[in-house]
């Protein structure tokens, strides 16, 4: 098990009702973390439209997560 801090932004934050939470997870990749939070917060947004960062660095869904990492879940972006 790994201790992962998950941060939620924009609609993810509104949906989860929290800015962040620390979870004890059996997760190998960022995608595993996302899937866990999707079922935890009953979210239906597909990963394909979303982005992820690990410890403030943009990452891919296949990027590995390590014990103590902070995973930032970004819903579909809309700058400009």
């Amino acid at each position, binding site marked *: 098990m790994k201790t992962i801090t998950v941060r939620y*932004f*924009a*609609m993810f934050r509104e949906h989860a009702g929290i800015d962040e939470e620390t979870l004890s997870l059996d997760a190998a990749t960022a995608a595993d973390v996302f899937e866990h939070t999707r079922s935890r917060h009953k*979210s*239906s*947004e597909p990963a394909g*439209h979303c*982005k992820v*960062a690990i410890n*403030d*660095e*943009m990452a891919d869904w296949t990027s590995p997560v390590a014990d103590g990492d902070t995973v*930032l879940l*970004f*819903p*579909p*972006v*809309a*700058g*400009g």
Partner: protein
Amino acid sequence: MMRMTTDPIDPDALRRELFDPAAGGYCSFEGWVRNENEGHEVLRLEYEGYEPVAVAEGRKILAEAAEKFPSLHAHCVHRTGMLEIGDCAVWVGVASAHRDEAFKACRYIIDEVKHRLPIWKKEHYTNGDSGWVNCERCAEHAHGA
């Protein structure tokens, strides 16, 4: 220079920062808050950004633009917070020796900024509803689809 700000964007002041005697051309893009989106009358837009990653990713985009379309200076500023119709939400400015690089770099930067920076906008509609742009589930909620 890549910057996020909650203050109003002043394009004239930003333009002056790019002045360079070696520049033969300057191209800029301003993204403004529009009063309509997909048939819904918009009252105002609320922008949220995650600055540490947005600035880092913005700097990468500026570096990519400099590599692809060599220019003298390229800057980008994105605003966050509650914006009214007509407000400038994003500004891109490029100064270069010749116009071609300025046009191309400016276009590249704004296109990448829109797709890559962790910035979100919530539309507030005249009917009292609101919805996050590009978020399918939220759009369904907001529009009752």
